[in-house]
Every structure is written in C-alpha cells, then in structure tokens.
C-alpha cells in the first residue's frame, strides 16, 4: 500500500513538473492582483483504527488588504466518518528573509464513528522564507462525547504546535518539492506524534496551481517506537481571482 502511494506521488510530481509557467506565490502572500483564492483537494489513505478512508476538502481565502487575510476550510472524510469546518485569519509581516504570518484558527470536528465533538483553538506564528518554513504555536482542544449524552467533556492542556518544512527549490520557481515535519495537519492537532512526508506544488496556468502531499502519520513518536498509524495522499487544485 505504502509503495503504491509513493509511486502515485512520484508519478503525479513528474507529470506536473513540466506544467509550470510563472512564479509561485507563497500561500499567505497577496500578489497585489488577486484577492480571492479557492482550493480543494481529494485525499485517501489508511488508518489503523478506521481502515481505508477518503475525503474531499475545500478552502477559501480572502486577502482583505496586502497584510490581512481571512478564510475558512471544510472537509468530509468517508471511512473515518469525520466532518470538519474551520475559520481562520491572520496578519502577514514582511521581514528581511521572507514573511512572518500570525494566525488564529477555530476548528470544529465531528467524529461520527466514535460519537465525539471536538473544538480546537490555535494561535501560531509561521516564518516562511525562500527555502524553509517554521511554525510555532499553541492549541487548545476540547472534546466531549455525543452518544452518551451525559455531558462528559475534557479540555486538554495546551498543546505545543510546531512544524518545519524545506523545499528543494526557491519558492519563486513554478514547481517545487519539499519535506515537512509537524505535529498537526489541516484538521487535527496532536501532542507529540510527528507527521512527516513529501509536499509539492506546480503552476498549471496563471491562476491555477496543482499541489499535493504524501503524509506519514505515526503514533508513539516520542515513545521512540513510532509505529504505523496512518498514511495518506492529497491531490488538490487552487484557483485565484
């Protein structure tokens, strides 16, 4: 299964490498022309608890000014029976080497299979330079059970949120490939379980980007017995206007 996923990512990457035409605009940087961005991806993978799963995601971002942005995301995952929605906003501060983006995010997850509602509140700062990006933040997660109807809930101690990514090419290139390590993904925050994988993007046309990820999500990272927990791929398209 893993070998098959790696093959798919490599094929998709090679296929899209030749499409790039123009410089890539980093995710949260306003290009001075297009204020709106919409993107979506399909994903699939395998999880120890839920077996095979797949899903659809959609995102929207609006650049209110060259510095301020707001947006929202939603996803539906089959297999896991997971429904998610979030809203977020932030401020981008240009610095000598790249940008630092300060973001806030509020997210709701409904794990229907297990009957759990989850709310997450995240504050983070992301430094994004030509080759590397680094994120630090804090996340507060509260969950409660749905089916038992007894009002049992638990608020976790604030989780340290961290991520690191590195690209093989300068961000201005029309295609790129990189590695990432982080303890979160688009719709969950973990404590010390460290995801890692490969990410890529490629410009298709002036307003269109293809992007994707191959994500290994182990369990027990800091137990030093990182074990297979979840593997997934994402393949998406982004449009701006």
């Amino acid at each position: 299964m893993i070998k098959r996923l790696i093959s798919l990512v490599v094929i998709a990457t090679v296929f899209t490498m030749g499409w790039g035409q123009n410089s890539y605009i980093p995710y949260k940087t306003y290009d001075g022309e297009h204020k709106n961005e919409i993107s979506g991806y399909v994903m699939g993978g395998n999880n120890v608890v839920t077996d095979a799963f797949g899903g659809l995601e959609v995102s929207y971002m609006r650049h209110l000014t060259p510095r301020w942005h707001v947006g929202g995301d939603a996803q539906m995952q089959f297999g896991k029976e997971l429904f998610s929605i979030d809203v977020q906003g932030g401020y981008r501060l240009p610095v000598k080497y790249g940008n630092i983006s300060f973001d806030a995010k509020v997210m709701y997850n409904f794990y229907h299979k297990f009957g759990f509602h989850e709310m997450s509140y995240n504050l983070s700062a992301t430094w994004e330079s030509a080759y590397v990006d680094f994120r630090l933040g804090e996340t507060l997660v509260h969950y409660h059970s749905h089916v038992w109807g007894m009002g049992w809930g638990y608020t976790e101690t604030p989780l340290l949120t961290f991520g690191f990514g590195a690209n093989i090419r300068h961000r201005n290139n029309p295609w790129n490939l990189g590695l990432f390590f982080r303890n979160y993904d688009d719709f969950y925050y973990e404590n010390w379980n460290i995801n890692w994988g490969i990410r890529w993007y490629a410009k298709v046309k002036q307003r269109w980007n293809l992007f994707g990820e191959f994500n290994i999500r182990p369990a027990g990272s800091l137990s030093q017995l990182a074990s297979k927990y979840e593997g997934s791929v994402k393949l998406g398209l982004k449009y701006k206007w």
Partner: protein
Amino acid sequence: MKAKYIFIAALAAVAMLNSSCEKVSPQGVLMGNTAVEDRVEMSYKYYRENNMEQKFDYDLQDFTEDGYSFLVGADSHVTTDLGRMNEMFQIGLDNDDLFFCHLGDIADTKPEYYINLQNCIFEAKAKYVEKYYYFDEDTREYYRKDAKYPLPKEYQDIQFPFFPVVGNHDLTHNGWALWSNIFGSSFYEFDIYVGDDDNGESVYDHFIFLDTASGTLGKLQVDLIEQGVLDGKNYLNYRHTFIFSHTNIFLPQNMQFASTFPREEAYFLLKQFDEWNASIVFCGHVHKWDEQIFNAVYFLTLDSMSERNSPNPGDYLVRVKIDKEGAVELEKVHMNYVAKK
C-alpha cells in the same frame, strides 16, 4: 559552502540514529524498531496456546468473596538496582494483597537488566511460596495453606500473581525478545469470581491488559478488540472491569515529552472503555500522578516508582481494595527505598 552544511547535517543525523544510549532510541521518533503488529500477532498466538484466559490461579478464587486487594506500580525502569521492585513485592506480601499489576517500562532494555528483573521475580516467588504454601513430603508437592480445596502443585506450576503490561522503554533497542521471554503475551484478560448476586448468579471482576507500548494498539489489536477477544465470557456477569495500559489517554502536562494516542484512537478507546463498562483505567508512561473522570470511568495515572526518576521516598504505588459489596477504595502506598550512593 551549501554542500559543507549538508555534509555536517548528514553526519549529525547519522550520529543521532546510531546513538546507543540505553534509554534513548532517536530513530524511533520517526520509525520504530519493534512493530506492534508483529508483537500482537506473537502475543495472540501465545495467548491462545497457553490458555491465558486462565492466567489467574484458581487457588486464589477462595479469597475473593469477602473482598480482596491488589497492588499497582508503574515505570520501575529496572537496571542494576532492584530496591524498589523488591520493596513492591514485599509490601504486597506483607499486606496479603492478592496480586500485583505493573503498568509497563518495567526494565530498561538491556539483557543484564532483564536477568536482574527475572531474578527479582524468582526471589519474590520464593517468598510467596514460603508464605502461602506448604510442601508435602509424602506427595512431594505444594499445597496452598489457606485454600478450601488446595490442589497439589509442583513448584514451577505455582503462579506468582504478577501481571504486567508492556511499555515503550521495555521495547526500544529490540527489547521485545527479552520481555516476551519472561512474560509471554503483551495483552490478555482474566476474571475473578467474587460471589453470587441476589438471584444466585455468579458475579465476576474482569481485568484487561492492553499492549499500548507503541502509542497505538495497532491494526491487529484493534481488530481483536472489535471481535471481542478481550470482552471476557459473554455468559459471565461482570461487576467491575479494570483496564491496564502503559500509554495514557490524558496528558497531565503539555510539556511532558511523551506521546499519547492519536485522535481517532483515543476516541476509539474511550468508546471501548464505555462498552467494557470500565470502572478504573490504570496508566503509566508520563511519570506523573493524574486523576480524571470521563464518562463515569475513573482514569488513574501513576508516578514512576523507579529510584532514579523518583529518588526520594514517596507514594508511588496504589492499592485497590474491593470489599464484599463491591465498593472500591484506592489507597496510595508509600515506598521507602532510596538508592545507595
């Protein structure tokens, strides 16, 4: 210049990956060296072939109807100093606790430490046999002194009632071979007859031991749980269910460098504990005392009883006392042993 930095980074990475520190296995942060699936497969085979459901010595069933107690410890990280392990066994023997449970990370991974541990258990068993059994010269067999209907046993057939779960530090540096050589299966369950209810039906307490050392149950163990392998006997009437797990659901402090379960698995387990009608879930791993109640299940995380992690005397053990009516009382148990300098 760039190549030089890449070369230095590569050298540092190789050095980290080859670190031979006894307690640390850096490569395990991204890729573990002991697969939970293999471990569970081996354990399940052992579980079936060795009739692990009858792991609990039936001689002990004579002493449960009027209430009983058991002693729980965690994270002993045995190396060369066996002071705290010896003390745990002695406390249990002195107080007539029916059995002992251990929440994992029993020894750091090194063959000599496991030899020390095994010798410690052998010695505790010898004291246990001396206290509770007599040797009949005629039949050349042992009999439980206070049992209603004592069964003749040879020494090796007397079960020393010590029930551990496996922890992550038991397994780093391929420690599974050492652990399984002593304890066999990393997951199992048993039940104890505790009397009859008002309708004359037998009532039991149920004990479930999970392999959570890797921070995940793994696919096979999830499947086995869903198939009901650890559910006990469906015709039995369970009063209490006690669950033992190395990895905890709730993290007492944010900055503790310990992985807990990923999201879906934590929710899966919380739901499963509800289906098992669990009374108490015992956990170790984070070396910090913590108590939580979720969905009427009591979650108790124990501090480390290791003399290196907890060098001062303190309350590192828990005694669980269950009276005739089924009321459960938890008692912190003090340990006095201090490592020699």
